Protein backbone atom coordinates (compact mmCIF):
# COMPACT_ATOMS: atom_id res chain seq x y z
CA UNK A 1 0.00 0.00 0.00
CA UNK A 2 2.66 2.54 1.05
CA UNK A 3 4.87 1.42 -1.82
CA UNK A 4 1.94 1.78 -4.19
CA UNK A 5 1.14 5.30 -2.98
CA UNK A 6 4.81 6.28 -3.19
CA UNK A 7 5.02 4.98 -6.75
CA UNK A 8 1.85 6.80 -7.74
CA UNK A 9 3.06 10.09 -6.25
CA UNK A 10 6.37 9.70 -8.06
CA UNK A 11 4.52 9.08 -11.33
CA UNK A 12 2.36 12.09 -10.61
CA UNK A 13 5.37 14.35 -10.16
CA UNK A 14 6.97 13.05 -13.35
CA UNK A 15 3.72 13.67 -15.17
CA UNK A 16 3.56 17.18 -13.79
CA UNK A 17 7.04 17.95 -15.11
CA UNK A 18 6.05 16.58 -18.53
CA UNK A 19 2.86 18.63 -18.47
CA UNK A 20 4.73 21.83 -17.69
CA UNK A 21 7.29 21.09 -20.45
CA UNK A 22 4.49 20.40 -22.92
CA UNK A 23 2.59 23.61 -22.16
CA UNK A 24 5.80 25.63 -22.09
CA UNK A 25 6.84 24.37 -25.53
CA UNK A 26 3.34 24.87 -26.92
CA UNK A 27 3.22 28.47 -25.73
CA UNK A 28 6.62 29.18 -27.23
CA UNK A 29 5.44 27.84 -30.56
CA UNK A 30 2.84 30.58 -30.64
CA UNK A 31 3.92 32.67 -33.59
CA UNK A 32 4.88 36.22 -32.83
CA UNK A 33 6.90 37.59 -29.99
CA UNK A 34 5.44 38.11 -26.53
CA UNK A 35 7.44 41.32 -26.15
CA UNK A 36 6.07 42.84 -29.36
CA UNK A 37 2.57 41.64 -28.45
CA UNK A 38 2.71 43.57 -25.17
CA UNK A 39 4.90 46.56 -26.05
CA UNK A 40 3.65 47.10 -29.60
CA UNK A 41 5.34 46.76 -32.98
CA UNK A 42 7.09 50.12 -32.82
CA UNK A 43 8.66 49.60 -29.41
CA UNK A 44 12.20 50.74 -28.84
CA UNK A 45 14.57 47.74 -29.30
CA UNK A 46 16.27 48.61 -26.01
CA UNK A 47 12.96 48.46 -24.15
CA UNK A 48 12.18 45.13 -25.81
CA UNK A 49 15.50 43.70 -24.67
CA UNK A 50 14.98 45.03 -21.17
CA UNK A 51 11.47 43.54 -21.09
CA UNK A 52 12.77 40.19 -22.29
CA UNK A 53 15.51 40.14 -19.68
CA UNK A 54 13.07 41.00 -16.91
CA UNK A 55 10.70 38.19 -17.80
CA UNK A 56 13.24 35.50 -18.62
CA UNK A 57 12.59 35.56 -22.34
CA UNK A 58 16.22 35.53 -23.39
CA UNK A 59 18.26 32.43 -24.11
CA UNK A 60 17.24 29.09 -25.60
CA UNK A 61 13.97 27.33 -24.90
CA UNK A 62 15.69 24.92 -22.52
CA UNK A 63 17.33 27.75 -20.59
CA UNK A 64 14.04 29.59 -20.34
CA UNK A 65 12.28 26.49 -19.10
CA UNK A 66 14.93 25.81 -16.47
CA UNK A 67 14.71 29.43 -15.43
CA UNK A 68 10.96 29.11 -14.97
CA UNK A 69 11.18 25.72 -13.22
CA UNK A 70 13.92 27.02 -10.92
CA UNK A 71 11.63 29.86 -9.91
CA UNK A 72 8.88 27.43 -8.99
CA UNK A 73 11.12 25.55 -6.60
CA UNK A 74 11.47 28.78 -4.63
CA UNK A 75 7.73 29.38 -4.87
CA UNK A 76 8.05 32.04 -7.57
CA UNK A 77 5.77 31.50 -10.55
CA UNK A 78 6.97 34.67 -12.25
CA UNK A 79 5.27 37.92 -13.10
CA UNK A 80 2.44 38.44 -15.52
CA UNK A 81 3.80 39.94 -18.75
CA UNK A 82 1.00 42.47 -18.61
CA UNK A 83 0.95 44.80 -15.63
CA UNK A 84 3.96 43.21 -13.98
CA UNK A 85 1.88 41.78 -11.13
CA UNK A 86 2.92 38.61 -9.32
CA UNK A 87 1.19 35.62 -10.89
CA UNK A 88 0.88 33.85 -7.53
CA UNK A 89 -0.99 36.77 -6.01
CA UNK A 90 -3.52 37.03 -8.83
CA UNK A 91 -3.88 33.24 -8.78
CA UNK A 92 -4.81 33.29 -5.12
CA UNK A 93 -7.35 36.07 -5.59
CA UNK A 94 -9.02 34.33 -8.56
CA UNK A 95 -8.77 30.80 -7.25
CA UNK A 96 -11.80 30.92 -4.86
CA UNK A 97 -14.19 31.76 -7.71
CA UNK A 98 -13.18 28.73 -9.78
CA UNK A 99 -13.05 26.54 -6.68
CA UNK A 100 -16.60 27.46 -5.78
CA UNK A 101 -17.85 26.83 -9.33
CA UNK A 102 -16.15 23.45 -9.53
CA UNK A 103 -17.15 22.34 -6.02
CA UNK A 104 -20.80 23.27 -6.47
CA UNK A 105 -21.15 21.78 -9.95
CA UNK A 106 -19.23 18.65 -8.94
CA UNK A 107 -21.52 18.25 -5.93
CA UNK A 108 -24.58 18.56 -8.14
CA UNK A 109 -23.10 16.15 -10.67
CA UNK A 110 -22.43 13.42 -8.13
CA UNK A 111 -25.72 13.94 -6.33
CA UNK A 112 -28.01 14.04 -9.35
CA UNK A 113 -25.99 11.61 -11.46
CA UNK A 114 -25.82 8.85 -8.87
CA UNK A 115 -29.29 9.19 -7.34
CA UNK A 116 -31.11 9.41 -10.66
CA UNK A 117 -29.01 6.57 -12.06
CA UNK A 118 -29.82 4.24 -9.17
CA UNK A 119 -33.45 5.33 -9.15
CA UNK A 120 -33.72 4.73 -12.89
CA UNK A 121 -32.15 1.28 -12.64
CA UNK A 122 -34.41 0.18 -9.79
CA UNK A 123 -37.48 1.13 -11.81
CA UNK A 124 -36.18 -0.11 -15.15
CA UNK A 125 -38.49 0.68 -18.08
CA UNK A 126 -41.03 2.51 -15.94
CA UNK A 127 -42.36 5.87 -17.07
CA UNK A 128 -39.99 7.61 -14.64
CA UNK A 129 -37.02 5.65 -15.98
CA UNK A 130 -37.86 6.65 -19.54
CA UNK A 131 -38.37 10.28 -18.49
CA UNK A 132 -35.03 10.41 -16.65
CA UNK A 133 -33.21 8.84 -19.59
CA UNK A 134 -34.88 11.27 -22.00
CA UNK A 135 -33.72 14.26 -19.96
CA UNK A 136 -30.22 12.76 -19.68
CA UNK A 137 -29.94 12.18 -23.42
CA UNK A 138 -31.00 15.75 -24.08
CA UNK A 139 -28.69 17.02 -21.34
CA UNK A 140 -25.66 15.52 -23.04
CA UNK A 141 -26.56 17.08 -26.38
CA UNK A 142 -27.35 20.66 -25.33
CA UNK A 143 -24.17 22.78 -25.30
CA UNK A 144 -23.42 24.21 -21.85
CA UNK A 145 -22.75 27.69 -23.23
CA UNK A 146 -26.25 27.73 -24.72
CA UNK A 147 -27.84 26.81 -21.39
CA UNK A 148 -25.81 29.46 -19.59
CA UNK A 149 -26.64 32.14 -22.15
CA UNK A 150 -30.33 31.26 -21.86
CA UNK A 151 -30.03 31.47 -18.08
CA UNK A 152 -29.06 35.12 -18.46
CA UNK A 153 -31.47 35.91 -21.28
CA UNK A 154 -34.76 34.33 -20.23
CA UNK A 155 -35.11 35.95 -16.77
CA UNK A 156 -33.89 39.23 -18.23
CA UNK A 157 -36.55 39.12 -20.95
CA UNK A 158 -39.43 37.90 -18.80
CA UNK A 159 -38.89 39.77 -15.56
CA UNK A 160 -36.05 42.13 -16.27
CA UNK A 161 -33.98 40.16 -13.72
CA UNK A 162 -30.21 40.15 -13.74
CA UNK A 163 -28.04 38.14 -11.35
CA UNK A 164 -25.91 40.19 -8.94
CA UNK A 165 -22.88 41.47 -10.78
CA UNK A 166 -19.36 40.25 -10.08
CA UNK A 167 -18.12 37.69 -7.60
CA UNK A 168 -18.92 38.19 -3.97
CA UNK A 169 -17.26 36.55 -1.02
CA UNK A 170 -19.34 33.56 0.15
CA UNK A 171 -18.55 34.38 3.79
CA UNK A 172 -19.55 38.07 3.64
CA UNK A 173 -22.94 37.60 2.05
CA UNK A 174 -23.84 33.93 1.57
CA UNK A 175 -27.28 34.68 0.12
CA UNK A 176 -26.04 37.07 -2.54
CA UNK A 177 -23.21 34.71 -3.34
CA UNK A 178 -25.45 31.71 -3.84
CA UNK A 179 -27.92 33.76 -5.88
CA UNK A 180 -25.03 34.35 -8.26
CA UNK A 181 -23.41 30.92 -8.21
CA UNK A 182 -26.18 28.35 -7.73
CA UNK A 183 -28.16 28.70 -10.98
CA UNK A 184 -25.20 28.57 -13.40
CA UNK A 185 -23.40 25.75 -11.57
CA UNK A 186 -26.63 23.76 -11.55
CA UNK A 187 -26.88 24.20 -15.32
CA UNK A 188 -23.19 23.45 -15.82
CA UNK A 189 -23.64 20.14 -14.01
CA UNK A 190 -26.46 18.95 -16.31
CA UNK A 191 -24.19 17.44 -18.96
CA UNK A 192 -21.88 15.70 -16.46
CA UNK A 193 -24.83 14.49 -14.36
CA UNK A 194 -26.37 12.99 -17.48
CA UNK A 195 -23.17 11.11 -18.36
CA UNK A 196 -22.83 9.87 -14.79
CA UNK A 197 -26.51 8.92 -14.61
CA UNK A 198 -26.33 6.71 -17.71
CA UNK A 199 -23.18 5.06 -16.44
CA UNK A 200 -24.55 4.49 -12.93
CA UNK A 201 -27.76 3.06 -14.35
CA UNK A 202 -26.03 0.55 -16.62
CA UNK A 203 -23.55 -0.42 -13.89
CA UNK A 204 -26.33 -0.90 -11.39
CA UNK A 205 -28.39 -3.03 -13.78
CA UNK A 206 -25.32 -5.16 -14.40
CA UNK A 207 -24.77 -5.69 -10.66
CA UNK A 208 -28.44 -6.45 -10.01
CA UNK A 209 -28.18 -9.39 -12.42
CA UNK A 210 -25.37 -11.02 -10.42
CA UNK A 211 -25.77 -14.24 -8.48
CA UNK A 212 -24.92 -12.73 -5.12
CA UNK A 213 -27.91 -10.42 -5.41
CA UNK A 214 -30.13 -13.45 -5.96
CA UNK A 215 -28.47 -15.08 -2.94
CA UNK A 216 -29.05 -12.01 -0.82
CA UNK A 217 -32.70 -11.97 -1.79
CA UNK A 218 -33.00 -15.71 -1.21
CA UNK A 219 -31.66 -15.21 2.31
CA UNK A 220 -34.72 -13.04 2.85
CA UNK A 221 -32.90 -9.72 3.18
CA UNK A 222 -34.99 -6.59 2.88
CA UNK A 223 -34.84 -5.10 -0.62
CA UNK A 224 -33.43 -1.91 0.87
CA UNK A 225 -30.50 -3.82 2.35
CA UNK A 226 -29.95 -5.68 -0.93
CA UNK A 227 -29.75 -2.47 -2.95
CA UNK A 228 -27.75 -0.38 -0.52
CA UNK A 229 -25.40 -2.86 1.13
CA UNK A 230 -24.90 -5.36 -1.66
CA UNK A 231 -25.62 -3.72 -5.00
CA UNK A 232 -24.63 -0.11 -4.42
CA UNK A 233 -21.28 -0.93 -2.90
CA UNK A 234 -20.32 -3.15 -5.81
CA UNK A 235 -21.52 -0.72 -8.44
CA UNK A 236 -19.66 2.21 -6.89
CA UNK A 237 -15.97 1.93 -7.97
CA UNK A 238 -16.39 2.48 -11.74
CA UNK A 239 -18.93 5.23 -11.03
CA UNK A 240 -16.37 7.01 -8.87
CA UNK A 241 -13.76 6.81 -11.61
CA UNK A 242 -16.14 8.34 -14.12
CA UNK A 243 -17.11 11.03 -11.61
CA UNK A 244 -13.41 11.91 -11.36
CA UNK A 245 -13.22 12.21 -15.14
CA UNK A 246 -16.23 14.54 -15.09
CA UNK A 247 -14.20 16.88 -12.92
CA UNK A 248 -12.06 17.60 -15.98
CA UNK A 249 -15.15 18.43 -18.01
CA UNK A 250 -16.36 20.74 -15.24
CA UNK A 251 -13.01 22.55 -15.04
CA UNK A 252 -13.30 23.10 -18.80
CA UNK A 253 -16.91 24.17 -18.37
CA UNK A 254 -15.79 26.65 -15.73
CA UNK A 255 -13.89 28.55 -18.45
CA UNK A 256 -17.15 28.97 -20.37
CA UNK A 257 -19.19 29.76 -17.26
CA UNK A 258 -16.76 32.44 -16.12
CA UNK A 259 -16.77 34.00 -19.58
CA UNK A 260 -20.56 34.01 -19.93
CA UNK A 261 -21.30 35.25 -16.41
CA UNK A 262 -18.35 37.63 -16.35
CA UNK A 263 -16.79 36.07 -13.24
CA UNK A 264 -13.13 36.73 -12.37
CA UNK A 265 -11.94 33.13 -12.03
CA UNK A 266 -8.93 31.18 -13.28
CA UNK A 267 -10.62 30.14 -16.53
CA UNK A 268 -11.28 33.62 -17.88
CA UNK A 269 -7.81 34.67 -16.71
CA UNK A 270 -6.12 31.87 -18.66
CA UNK A 271 -8.32 32.53 -21.67
CA UNK A 272 -7.09 36.12 -21.99
CA UNK A 273 -3.55 35.04 -21.22
CA UNK A 274 -3.50 32.48 -24.03
CA UNK A 275 -4.52 35.18 -26.49
CA UNK A 276 -1.85 37.61 -25.28
CA UNK A 277 0.93 34.99 -24.98
CA UNK A 278 1.16 35.79 -21.27
CA UNK A 279 2.87 32.50 -20.58
CA UNK A 280 3.48 32.63 -16.77
CA UNK A 281 -0.30 32.94 -16.31
CA UNK A 282 -1.15 30.05 -18.64
CA UNK A 283 1.55 27.93 -17.02
CA UNK A 284 0.30 28.35 -13.46
CA UNK A 285 -3.32 27.64 -14.45
CA UNK A 286 -2.36 24.63 -16.59
CA UNK A 287 -0.07 23.13 -13.95
CA UNK A 288 -2.67 23.72 -11.25
CA UNK A 289 -5.43 22.11 -13.35
CA UNK A 290 -3.33 19.08 -14.20
CA UNK A 291 -2.22 18.63 -10.58
CA UNK A 292 -5.82 18.92 -9.46
CA UNK A 293 -7.06 16.23 -11.86
CA UNK A 294 -4.20 13.86 -11.05
CA UNK A 295 -4.60 14.17 -7.28
CA UNK A 296 -8.34 13.53 -7.52
CA UNK A 297 -7.82 10.47 -9.69
CA UNK A 298 -5.21 9.15 -7.22
CA UNK A 299 -7.60 9.68 -4.32
CA UNK A 300 -10.37 7.87 -6.17
CA UNK A 301 -8.09 4.92 -6.90
CA UNK A 302 -7.13 4.75 -3.24
CA UNK A 303 -10.75 4.90 -2.11
CA UNK A 304 -11.35 1.63 -3.99
CA UNK A 305 -9.64 -0.17 -1.13
CA UNK A 306 -12.08 1.35 1.36
CA UNK A 307 -15.14 0.46 -0.67
CA UNK A 308 -14.06 -3.05 -1.58
CA UNK A 309 -11.63 -4.66 0.90
CA UNK A 310 -10.80 -7.35 -1.68
CA UNK A 311 -8.96 -4.77 -3.77
CA UNK A 312 -5.26 -4.86 -3.06
CA UNK A 313 -2.73 -2.38 -4.32
CA UNK A 314 0.37 -3.78 -5.91
Amino acid at each position, binding site marked *: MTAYVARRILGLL*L*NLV*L*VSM*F*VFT*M*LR*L*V*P*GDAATAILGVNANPENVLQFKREHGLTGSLVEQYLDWAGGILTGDFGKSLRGNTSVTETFLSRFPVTLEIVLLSFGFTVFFGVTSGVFSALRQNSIMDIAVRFVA*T*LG*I*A*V*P*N*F*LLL*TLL*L*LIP*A*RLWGYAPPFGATNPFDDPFDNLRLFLPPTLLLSIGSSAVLM*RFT*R*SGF*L*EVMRQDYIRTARAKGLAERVVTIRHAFRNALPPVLTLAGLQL*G*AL*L*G*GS*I*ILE*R*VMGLPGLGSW*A*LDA*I*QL*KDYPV*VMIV*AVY*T*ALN*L*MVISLMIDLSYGLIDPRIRFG
Partner: protein
Amino acid sequence: MARDIRAQTLETDFLAAGFRRTSFSETLLAAARPWLRRPLGLFGLVVVLLAFFTAIAAPLLSPFDAQTFVGASLESPNGKHLLGTNNLGQDVLSRTIYGAQVSMAVGFWATFIGVAGGTFLGIVSGYFGGWLDLIVQRVMEVLASFPGIMLALIVVAALGRPKEGGSDILVLSWQLRSLSLAISLGFIFGVMRVIRSAVLKEKSLPYIEAAVTLGASTPRIMFRHILPNVFPFVIVTFTTIIGAVILIEAGISFLGYGVSIGTPSWGLDLSNRNREYFLTAPWVMAGPSIALTLTVLGFNFLGDTLRDILDPRLRGSR
Protein backbone atom coordinates in the same frame (compact mmCIF):
# COMPACT_ATOMS: atom_id res chain seq x y z
CA MET B 1 -8.11 -23.35 -62.25
CA ALA B 2 -7.71 -25.87 -59.48
CA ARG B 3 -8.79 -23.18 -57.11
CA ASP B 4 -12.04 -22.64 -59.04
CA ILE B 5 -12.90 -26.29 -58.90
CA ARG B 6 -12.20 -26.46 -55.24
CA ALA B 7 -14.43 -23.45 -54.63
CA GLN B 8 -17.15 -25.04 -56.71
CA THR B 9 -17.08 -28.34 -54.85
CA LEU B 10 -17.08 -26.45 -51.60
CA GLU B 11 -20.17 -24.58 -52.72
CA THR B 12 -21.94 -27.80 -53.79
CA ASP B 13 -21.09 -29.32 -50.44
CA PHE B 14 -22.56 -26.34 -48.62
CA LEU B 15 -25.72 -26.42 -50.73
CA ALA B 16 -26.04 -30.15 -50.16
CA ALA B 17 -25.67 -29.60 -46.43
CA GLY B 18 -28.73 -27.36 -46.53
CA PHE B 19 -27.10 -23.95 -46.70
CA ARG B 20 -28.71 -21.52 -49.10
CA ARG B 21 -27.15 -18.77 -51.09
CA THR B 22 -28.46 -15.47 -49.69
CA SER B 23 -29.62 -12.89 -52.17
CA PHE B 24 -28.50 -9.28 -51.99
CA SER B 25 -31.89 -8.10 -50.76
CA GLU B 26 -31.83 -10.67 -47.98
CA THR B 27 -28.41 -9.47 -46.88
CA LEU B 28 -29.65 -5.89 -46.95
CA LEU B 29 -32.69 -6.79 -44.89
CA ALA B 30 -30.57 -8.66 -42.35
CA ALA B 31 -28.38 -5.57 -41.98
CA ALA B 32 -31.40 -3.27 -41.70
CA ARG B 33 -33.36 -5.36 -39.20
CA PRO B 34 -31.55 -4.26 -36.00
CA TRP B 35 -32.09 -0.64 -37.12
CA LEU B 36 -35.80 -1.08 -37.75
CA ARG B 37 -36.19 -2.35 -34.20
CA ARG B 38 -34.43 0.75 -32.86
CA PRO B 39 -36.37 3.84 -33.92
CA LEU B 40 -34.09 6.21 -31.99
CA GLY B 41 -31.05 4.81 -33.78
CA LEU B 42 -32.79 5.22 -37.11
CA PHE B 43 -33.68 8.78 -36.14
CA GLY B 44 -30.02 9.40 -35.28
CA LEU B 45 -28.85 7.93 -38.59
CA VAL B 46 -31.27 10.14 -40.54
CA VAL B 47 -30.22 13.28 -38.62
CA VAL B 48 -26.52 12.53 -39.15
CA LEU B 49 -26.97 11.89 -42.88
CA LEU B 50 -29.03 15.07 -43.17
CA ALA B 51 -26.37 17.07 -41.33
CA PHE B 52 -23.63 15.83 -43.67
CA PHE B 53 -25.86 16.46 -46.69
CA THR B 54 -26.63 19.99 -45.48
CA ALA B 55 -22.94 20.73 -45.05
CA ILE B 56 -22.03 19.46 -48.51
CA ALA B 57 -25.01 20.90 -50.37
CA ALA B 58 -25.15 24.18 -48.40
CA PRO B 59 -24.75 26.42 -51.49
CA LEU B 60 -27.68 24.67 -53.17
CA LEU B 61 -29.93 24.54 -50.10
CA SER B 62 -29.56 28.00 -48.60
CA PRO B 63 -31.81 30.75 -49.96
CA PHE B 64 -29.16 33.48 -49.61
CA ASP B 65 -25.44 33.84 -49.26
CA ALA B 66 -24.50 33.55 -45.59
CA GLN B 67 -22.13 36.52 -45.53
CA THR B 68 -23.89 39.17 -47.63
CA PHE B 69 -26.32 41.67 -46.18
CA VAL B 70 -29.60 40.69 -47.77
CA GLY B 71 -32.17 42.39 -45.54
CA ALA B 72 -32.73 45.00 -42.89
CA SER B 73 -31.10 44.57 -39.48
CA LEU B 74 -32.92 42.20 -37.09
CA GLU B 75 -35.99 41.47 -39.22
CA SER B 76 -38.28 39.06 -37.39
CA PRO B 77 -39.06 35.79 -39.20
CA ASN B 78 -41.11 36.47 -42.33
CA GLY B 79 -41.89 35.02 -45.77
CA LYS B 80 -38.60 36.14 -47.28
CA HIS B 81 -36.38 35.35 -44.29
CA LEU B 82 -37.89 32.27 -42.67
CA LEU B 83 -35.76 32.56 -39.52
CA GLY B 84 -35.38 36.34 -39.65
CA THR B 85 -32.16 38.32 -40.04
CA ASN B 86 -29.34 39.12 -37.64
CA ASN B 87 -28.04 42.53 -36.64
CA LEU B 88 -26.05 42.85 -39.87
CA GLY B 89 -29.05 41.94 -42.02
CA GLN B 90 -27.75 38.47 -42.89
CA ASP B 91 -30.28 35.68 -43.38
CA VAL B 92 -30.31 33.47 -40.23
CA LEU B 93 -31.55 30.37 -42.08
CA SER B 94 -28.72 30.61 -44.61
CA ARG B 95 -26.16 31.08 -41.85
CA THR B 96 -27.56 28.05 -40.02
CA ILE B 97 -27.29 25.94 -43.18
CA TYR B 98 -23.74 27.09 -43.93
CA GLY B 99 -22.86 26.68 -40.25
CA ALA B 100 -23.18 22.92 -40.69
CA GLN B 101 -19.97 23.05 -42.76
CA VAL B 102 -17.66 24.07 -39.92
CA SER B 103 -19.30 21.75 -37.38
CA MET B 104 -19.31 18.71 -39.64
CA ALA B 105 -15.83 19.30 -41.07
CA VAL B 106 -14.16 19.77 -37.69
CA GLY B 107 -16.40 17.14 -36.09
CA PHE B 108 -15.45 14.55 -38.68
CA TRP B 109 -11.75 15.31 -39.02
CA ALA B 110 -11.00 15.80 -35.33
CA THR B 111 -12.74 12.53 -34.56
CA PHE B 112 -10.95 10.83 -37.45
CA ILE B 113 -7.51 12.00 -36.31
CA GLY B 114 -8.28 11.13 -32.69
CA VAL B 115 -9.62 7.67 -33.48
CA ALA B 116 -6.96 6.83 -36.08
CA GLY B 117 -4.18 8.01 -33.78
CA GLY B 118 -5.66 6.30 -30.74
CA THR B 119 -6.20 3.05 -32.63
CA PHE B 120 -2.67 3.01 -34.00
CA LEU B 121 -1.12 3.73 -30.59
CA GLY B 122 -3.48 1.29 -28.88
CA ILE B 123 -2.55 -1.55 -31.22
CA VAL B 124 1.17 -0.85 -31.14
CA SER B 125 1.38 -0.34 -27.40
CA GLY B 126 -0.95 -3.23 -26.60
CA TYR B 127 0.78 -5.66 -28.95
CA PHE B 128 4.39 -4.86 -28.07
CA GLY B 129 3.89 -4.11 -24.39
CA GLY B 130 7.07 -3.50 -22.38
CA TRP B 131 8.90 -0.19 -22.41
CA LEU B 132 7.19 1.02 -25.60
CA ASP B 133 3.83 0.57 -23.89
CA LEU B 134 5.11 2.42 -20.85
CA ILE B 135 6.34 5.40 -22.88
CA VAL B 136 3.14 5.67 -24.92
CA GLN B 137 1.02 5.53 -21.77
CA ARG B 138 3.09 8.22 -20.05
CA VAL B 139 3.05 10.62 -22.98
CA MET B 140 -0.66 10.14 -23.56
CA GLU B 141 -1.35 10.74 -19.87
CA VAL B 142 0.15 14.19 -20.26
CA LEU B 143 -2.47 15.03 -22.89
CA ALA B 144 -5.17 13.56 -20.67
CA SER B 145 -4.19 15.78 -17.75
CA PHE B 146 -6.11 18.77 -19.12
CA PRO B 147 -9.75 19.47 -19.68
CA GLY B 148 -10.25 18.87 -23.44
CA ILE B 149 -11.26 22.44 -24.12
CA MET B 150 -8.22 23.91 -22.33
CA LEU B 151 -5.83 21.63 -24.23
CA ALA B 152 -7.51 22.58 -27.50
CA LEU B 153 -7.32 26.30 -26.71
CA ILE B 154 -3.58 26.07 -25.98
CA VAL B 155 -2.84 24.03 -29.11
CA VAL B 156 -4.96 26.28 -31.34
CA ALA B 157 -2.96 29.24 -30.02
CA ALA B 158 0.31 27.38 -30.66
CA LEU B 159 -0.65 26.58 -34.24
CA GLY B 160 -1.31 30.28 -34.76
CA ARG B 161 -2.83 32.08 -37.67
CA PRO B 162 -1.84 31.90 -41.32
CA LYS B 163 0.42 34.60 -42.73
CA GLU B 164 -1.14 37.92 -43.62
CA GLY B 165 -2.65 38.33 -47.05
CA GLY B 166 -4.20 34.91 -47.45
CA SER B 167 -7.64 34.75 -49.00
CA ASP B 168 -10.65 34.01 -46.80
CA ILE B 169 -10.85 30.42 -47.94
CA LEU B 170 -7.19 29.81 -47.09
CA VAL B 171 -7.64 31.31 -43.64
CA LEU B 172 -10.72 29.19 -43.06
CA SER B 173 -9.07 25.95 -44.12
CA TRP B 174 -6.08 26.75 -41.88
CA GLN B 175 -8.42 27.31 -38.96
CA LEU B 176 -10.39 24.12 -39.63
CA ARG B 177 -7.15 22.16 -39.77
CA SER B 178 -5.73 23.53 -36.53
CA LEU B 179 -9.07 23.16 -34.74
CA SER B 180 -9.36 19.53 -35.87
CA LEU B 181 -5.83 18.70 -34.74
CA ALA B 182 -6.17 20.56 -31.43
CA ILE B 183 -9.49 18.98 -30.48
CA SER B 184 -8.40 15.48 -31.53
CA LEU B 185 -5.51 15.48 -29.03
CA GLY B 186 -7.91 15.40 -26.10
CA PHE B 187 -9.55 12.21 -27.39
CA ILE B 188 -6.53 10.12 -28.36
CA PHE B 189 -5.93 8.88 -24.82
CA GLY B 190 -9.47 7.57 -24.32
CA VAL B 191 -9.55 5.81 -27.70
CA MET B 192 -6.11 4.31 -27.09
CA ARG B 193 -7.16 2.85 -23.75
CA VAL B 194 -10.23 1.17 -25.26
CA ILE B 195 -8.33 -0.26 -28.23
CA ARG B 196 -5.34 -1.27 -26.11
CA SER B 197 -7.44 -3.33 -23.71
CA ALA B 198 -9.21 -4.98 -26.65
CA VAL B 199 -5.81 -5.78 -28.22
CA LEU B 200 -4.56 -7.30 -24.96
CA LYS B 201 -7.48 -9.72 -25.09
CA GLU B 202 -7.00 -10.57 -28.77
CA LYS B 203 -3.25 -11.04 -28.41
CA SER B 204 -3.61 -14.22 -26.37
CA LEU B 205 -6.07 -15.90 -28.75
CA PRO B 206 -4.99 -18.96 -30.80
CA TYR B 207 -5.38 -17.29 -34.21
CA ILE B 208 -2.55 -14.92 -33.38
CA GLU B 209 -0.34 -17.84 -32.43
CA ALA B 210 -1.33 -19.50 -35.72
CA ALA B 211 -0.41 -16.38 -37.68
CA VAL B 212 2.96 -16.16 -35.91
CA THR B 213 3.63 -19.83 -36.66
CA LEU B 214 2.83 -19.26 -40.32
CA GLY B 215 5.52 -16.59 -40.36
CA ALA B 216 3.34 -13.50 -40.73
CA SER B 217 5.26 -10.28 -40.17
CA THR B 218 4.52 -8.19 -37.07
CA PRO B 219 2.88 -5.31 -38.97
CA ARG B 220 0.77 -7.86 -40.84
CA ILE B 221 -0.40 -9.44 -37.57
CA MET B 222 -1.14 -6.05 -36.07
CA PHE B 223 -3.02 -4.55 -38.97
CA ARG B 224 -4.41 -7.50 -40.96
CA HIS B 225 -5.27 -9.82 -38.07
CA ILE B 226 -5.81 -7.77 -34.93
CA LEU B 227 -7.19 -4.56 -36.44
CA PRO B 228 -10.19 -6.22 -38.15
CA ASN B 229 -11.00 -7.99 -34.90
CA VAL B 230 -10.99 -4.82 -32.81
CA PHE B 231 -12.66 -2.78 -35.56
CA PRO B 232 -16.12 -2.78 -33.93
CA PHE B 233 -14.53 -0.89 -31.03
CA VAL B 234 -13.03 1.58 -33.51
CA ILE B 235 -16.43 2.30 -35.04
CA VAL B 236 -18.14 2.54 -31.67
CA THR B 237 -15.56 4.98 -30.25
CA PHE B 238 -15.85 7.04 -33.44
CA THR B 239 -19.60 7.48 -33.18
CA THR B 240 -19.51 7.95 -29.39
CA ILE B 241 -17.01 10.81 -29.35
CA ILE B 242 -18.04 12.78 -32.45
CA GLY B 243 -20.93 14.45 -30.58
CA ALA B 244 -18.56 15.64 -27.85
CA VAL B 245 -16.08 16.83 -30.50
CA ILE B 246 -18.74 18.96 -32.20
CA LEU B 247 -19.68 20.48 -28.83
CA ILE B 248 -16.06 21.37 -28.06
CA GLU B 249 -15.63 23.00 -31.46
CA ALA B 250 -18.79 25.03 -30.89
CA GLY B 251 -17.52 25.97 -27.41
CA ILE B 252 -14.18 27.20 -28.77
CA SER B 253 -15.89 29.21 -31.52
CA PHE B 254 -18.31 30.55 -28.90
CA LEU B 255 -15.35 31.83 -26.88
CA GLY B 256 -14.05 33.49 -30.04
CA TYR B 257 -10.96 31.31 -30.53
CA GLY B 258 -12.27 29.23 -33.42
CA VAL B 259 -13.12 30.40 -36.91
CA SER B 260 -12.85 34.13 -37.73
CA ILE B 261 -15.69 36.47 -36.92
CA GLY B 262 -18.18 36.56 -39.79
CA THR B 263 -17.77 32.92 -40.78
CA PRO B 264 -21.13 31.16 -40.47
CA SER B 265 -20.66 28.80 -37.52
CA TRP B 266 -23.16 27.60 -34.93
CA GLY B 267 -20.90 28.25 -31.97
CA LEU B 268 -19.83 31.70 -33.19
CA ASP B 269 -23.40 32.76 -34.05
CA LEU B 270 -24.42 31.97 -30.45
CA SER B 271 -21.43 33.77 -29.03
CA ASN B 272 -21.30 36.27 -26.23
CA ARG B 273 -20.77 39.27 -28.45
CA ASN B 274 -24.24 38.74 -29.92
CA ARG B 275 -25.88 38.51 -26.52
CA GLU B 276 -27.29 42.04 -26.60
CA TYR B 277 -29.19 41.28 -29.80
CA PHE B 278 -30.64 38.05 -28.43
CA LEU B 279 -32.61 40.02 -25.85
CA THR B 280 -34.56 41.98 -28.43
CA ALA B 281 -34.34 39.45 -31.28
CA PRO B 282 -34.38 35.89 -29.87
CA TRP B 283 -34.92 34.37 -33.33
CA VAL B 284 -31.28 35.02 -34.12
CA MET B 285 -30.41 32.20 -31.67
CA ALA B 286 -33.08 29.72 -32.69
CA GLY B 287 -31.51 28.36 -35.89
CA PRO B 288 -27.97 27.65 -34.70
CA SER B 289 -28.97 26.38 -31.24
CA ILE B 290 -31.56 23.92 -32.57
CA ALA B 291 -29.26 22.75 -35.37
CA LEU B 292 -26.36 22.21 -32.97
CA THR B 293 -28.39 20.35 -30.33
CA LEU B 294 -30.20 18.21 -32.89
CA THR B 295 -26.97 17.21 -34.64
CA VAL B 296 -25.26 16.19 -31.40
CA LEU B 297 -28.41 14.35 -30.32
CA GLY B 298 -28.44 12.50 -33.65
CA PHE B 299 -24.80 11.45 -33.31
CA ASN B 300 -25.38 10.27 -29.74
CA PHE B 301 -28.41 8.18 -30.72
CA LEU B 302 -26.43 6.72 -33.62
CA GLY B 303 -23.50 5.96 -31.33
CA ASP B 304 -25.66 4.26 -28.69
CA THR B 305 -27.37 2.13 -31.31
CA LEU B 306 -24.15 1.12 -33.03
CA ARG B 307 -22.64 0.11 -29.71
CA ASP B 308 -25.77 -1.86 -28.97
CA ILE B 309 -25.50 -3.71 -32.28
CA LEU B 310 -21.73 -4.12 -32.53
CA ASP B 311 -20.79 -4.82 -28.92
CA PRO B 312 -22.89 -7.74 -27.72
CA ARG B 313 -21.42 -7.60 -24.23
CA LEU B 314 -23.18 -4.32 -23.60
CA ARG B 315 -26.42 -5.39 -25.23
CA GLY B 316 -29.48 -4.56 -23.15
CA SER B 317 -27.54 -2.78 -20.49
CA ARG B 318 -28.50 0.70 -21.67
